[in-house]
């Protein structure tokens, strides 16, 4: 009788190529992921069901909490240029080294006269430094100047209009928010984003 011989095939597949691809992707994602910078002023943002993402660049964030306003700007070159313009305006000279450090810094909340001290600190100390917020009263409206100069800097470097986002604490009283909105409206910025948390669909 003729016996049909079954060809025994090995069940194990070669994983080498798959492994290569997987690790290539893994390396890519690790390298492109940006580490989360600690916030200078932690706020609890209110939740909403709207799901629009904030842009990655050309963005200035005004963080409002405990009556203080902190200012943050995206993009290294834009930050440097904005700092330079602010320095010229208020007669504070920043060295190249300070500018480089400022470009990598997180948001800040001090008058420009004290900005040098904040730049000199280590990032761990900055959060503990108890920054008083950027001055925004009518006598010394540095916040408006920051917004104005950042817009100029952004148009110069990126040739795009700067987007403004307001990140307010949920418990912050409305007049504080309104004050910031008024500052923006004085510069004819009539549309801006409000940063919110995520809420379930069935709210």
């Amino acid at each position, binding site marked *: 009788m003729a016996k049909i011989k079954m060809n025994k095939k090995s069940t194990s597949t070669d*994983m080498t190529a798959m*492994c290569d691809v997987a690790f290539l992707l893994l390396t890519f994602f690790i390298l492109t992921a940006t580490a989360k910078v600690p916030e200078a002023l932690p706020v609890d943002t209110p939740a909403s069901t709207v799901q629009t993402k904030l842009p990655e660049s050309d963005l200035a964030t005004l963080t409002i909490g405990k009556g203080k306003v902190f200012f943050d700007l995206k993009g290294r070159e834009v930050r440097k240029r904005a700092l330079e313009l602010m320095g010229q305006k208020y007669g504070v000279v920043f060295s190249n080294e300070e500018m480089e450090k400022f470009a990598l810094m997180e948001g800040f909340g001090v008058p420009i006269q004290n900005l040098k001290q904040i730049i000199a600190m280590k990032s761990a100390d900055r959060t503990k430094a108890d920054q008083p917020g950027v001055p925004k009263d009518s006598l010394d409206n540095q916040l408006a100047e920051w917004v104005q100069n950042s817009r100029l800097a952004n148009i110069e470097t990126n040739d795009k209009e700067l987007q403004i986002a307001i990140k307010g604490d949920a418990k912050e009283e409305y007049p504080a928010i309104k004050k910031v909105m008024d500052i923006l409206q004085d510069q004819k910025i009539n549309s801006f984003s409000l940063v919110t948390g995520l809420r379930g669909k069935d709210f």
Partner: protein
Amino acid sequence: MAELNTGDGGGGKGGKVRSKKQNSKVDLTAMVDLAFLLITFFMLTTTLSKPQSMSLGLPDKDDDPTKNKDVKVDENRTMTILLGDDDKLVRYVGLIGSPVSGGAPKDMTYGKEGIRKELLSRKKAVLQYTGDKNKGMIVIIKPSKKSNYRNLIDILDEMAITDVPTYAIVNEFSPEETKLLEGNKE
């Protein structure tokens, strides 16, 4: 297949020392599992950590009061929402002195059962009244000095959920409205 043959070269005569053939294949399954787990983790965290935002457009502001024109709107189309402290919310439809039927000033709650129901039913009623798709409801949001940011976001969120065509944030309070927010408190 990644296999390394460690064959002994040629046959010697006499007693030869036979080296044991060892399989050099390594099982990569666990390694691939781990790699893909990490990939998934990094992919999700990079896209999900971006904060959400809602965009808000405000009307032009002019410091010159003569240029600020009052826009006349049909009072039957407007609903005014007053935000007070302690999550208080009062709404009225039409004018405060002569509200539309069923639209007298009334306390409401935030969320699904409160203001949203009202907004949806009013929206329908207004469309029926005007009979024009382009003339929908107008909502005027008046946050008082004591209201907080969460209240404002909640109301703006309701606007987005119920898809109200026109809404505005107004900061001026008439004395009657101030009374409404403060008077009803026990």
